[in-house]
């Protein structure tokens, strides 16, 4: 069966006046229909860039290579107009900051109408009202509030409105870029509830972009961990939680306070993200890695498969560690 979304060797560079930023470097993963995956990493690791790239919403100074196959079509190769038709109808997206994601001078209704007109120019107004009301209802907002302006909504309501907008046309995929990050805990829970609900009721795949592994655990079945533009590790959620392979995944998991309740102490990963304009040679994680070896500093590790998971670390591949793990195979 063909994957719904297949990302192959995706690299994204930003051209800036001070040099090229390698935001995403040669990552590949795929999403099956009805699959939910989590794209996880610290801020600045390239996860949002990847998510945004799927819909072609990157700023003009971004240079993308590789391919993004959606239902077999390469989204990087189709025309702008075709891509536009995909957005909101086949794939929709919600964003981190609901406070700024809605146009402040447009009524909620007009946001829906804009979406509907963009894809069904001939739809009549009653039909549009019906669809928008239902979408709003499905996220728990009274349809009567369609006439309101965004500033009359709370942050949680706005994010729910964004979700309603995203699902109004029953897309086959939803990309949620840090949907809860800027909300307070109670509201976060509400939004997660809505997303969980969606997962159950709608026939829809989801890409959840987050730095919060805790959020991922209950919503997705696959996880892609990114570090500094590299794919560190990917695989199904349980095995990753049970037995993280990449040292970075380990560190990430340990930094979540509520995963292992006995560990009361809040952990953090020492060091900071490298400068992507001038990334370290070899593995990008080595400056912070407790298992660092000489080769890590010299050469970029290959991506190898371990237990059905992919991992990019010298601990699991290459000549040096050939004796430890025989299942490794480089993908390039």
């Amino acid at each position: 069966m063909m994957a719904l979304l297949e990302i192959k060797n995706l690299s994204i560079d930003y051209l800036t006046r001070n040099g090229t930023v390698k935001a995403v470097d040669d990552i590949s993963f795929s999403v099956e229909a009805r699959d939910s995956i989590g794209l996880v990493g610290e801020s600045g690791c390239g996860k949002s860039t990847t998510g945004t790239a799927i819909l072609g919403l990157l700023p003009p100074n971004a240079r993308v290579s590789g391919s993004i196959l959606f239902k077999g079509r390469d989204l990087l190769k189709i025309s702008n107009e075709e891509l536009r038709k995909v957005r909101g109808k086949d794939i929709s997206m919600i964003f981190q900051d609901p406070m700024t994601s809605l146009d402040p001078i447009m009524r909620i209704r007009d946001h829906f109408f804009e979406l509907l007109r963009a894809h069904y120019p001939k739809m009549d107004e009653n039909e549009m009202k019906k669809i928008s009301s239902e979408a709003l209802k499905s996220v728990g907002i009274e349809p009567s509030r369609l006439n309101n302006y965004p500033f009359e909504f709370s942050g949680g309501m706005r994010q729910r409105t964004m979700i309603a907008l995203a699902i109004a046309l029953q897309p086959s995929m939803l990309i949620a870029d840090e949907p809860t990050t800027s909300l307070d805990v109670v509201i976060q829970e509400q939004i997660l509830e809505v997303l969980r609900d969606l997962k159950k009721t709608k026939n829809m795949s989801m890409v959840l972009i987050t730095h919060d592994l805790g959020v991922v655990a209950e919503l997705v079945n696959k996880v892609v961990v990114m570090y500094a533009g590299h794919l560190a590790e990917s695989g199904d959620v349980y095995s990753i939680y049970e037995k993280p392979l990449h040292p970075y995944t380990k560190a990430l998991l340990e930094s979540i306070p509520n995963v292992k309740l006995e560990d009361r102490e809040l952990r953090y990963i020492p060091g900071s993200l490298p400068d992507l304009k001038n990334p370290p040679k070899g593995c990008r994680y080595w400056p912070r890695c407790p298992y660092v070896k000489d080769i890590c500093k010299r050469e970029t590790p290959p991506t190898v498969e371990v237990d059905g998971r992919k991992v990019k670390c010298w601990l699991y591949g290459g000549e040096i560690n050939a004796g430890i793990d025989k299942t490794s195979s480089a993908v390039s």
Partner: protein
Amino acid sequence: MKTYILTRILLAIPMILIILTIIFFVLRILPGNPVMALLGPKAPPEVVKAMEHQMGLDKPIIVQYGDYLGSILKGDFGVSAYTGVTVIQELMQKFPATLELTIFAMTIAVFIGIFFGTYGAYHFGRTLDIAARVYSIFVYSFPVFWFGIMLQLIFGVWLHWLPVSGRSSPFMIPNHIYTGLYVIDSILNLEWPVLVDTLYHLILPSVTLGVVISSIFVRMVRSNVILSLSSQYVVAARARGAKEKKVIFKHALKNAMAPILTIMGLEFALLLGGAVLTEVTFSWPGIGSYLVTRITYRDFPAIQGAIVFFAMFVAIVSILVDIANAWLDPRVRY
């Protein structure tokens, strides 16, 4: 909304008053006797005295000031010492010319500003953007009268395409004056040749003024649209599949409009300053050339009247801008 407009109007009053006060005293500190200027050197002293008395110039300056404020409040701007006609009558005849010129110039400036500014912002960093920036910075340094002279030379003298001075050709003044705006009056009178003639005369002066002012509008629109283009709601709108034109004009531009309008309101003062020079360059019979002429003759009531009109004009425009802002932005409206 009503109270909002009312407060704005009340806020404008001190501004007019302060400007008026400054001008009133500046006019009177320095040498130059308006009566002598009017009567000429041949006038016998008793005539000068009589005239001074008639104009109230023999009273202490503070009393004159009080009298003047009092009569202004009654809408009485006094009688021009130069022509003997009431200043309000003269201003009402001159003001529509200035209004017509500024409306057309503003329209041109806004059009250029929005077009060039928006596309410049959209093509940030690329050729069109650089062109917009070069345009704006170059045109900003054009002295408006110099630009006007050049246009006169090219389109009037060399090409003979356009009239280079005045508001109308001979016999082409609307028969009945309702508003003083010839464009509107000629339509009301159904005098089509007059309308055409009027528009014809408006082209060069309003293009001159409009282009020079547009430089500021281009950069304002550009920088504000850049800001709103980088907002989340623009990305979100694109993610919904909204068409690019809608994204630019409905989201980016409309959101940028509030700050743009505010600055446009402020720059309107600059437009008026330019209008004075444009009027002089093009023999445009508005308040600007009126003011410049009357300054030579120390026609106090006329100068003061013109200044008050300018101040009121600025105030009214800024009130309109605020109202437009409220209309554009629901957050202000509610």
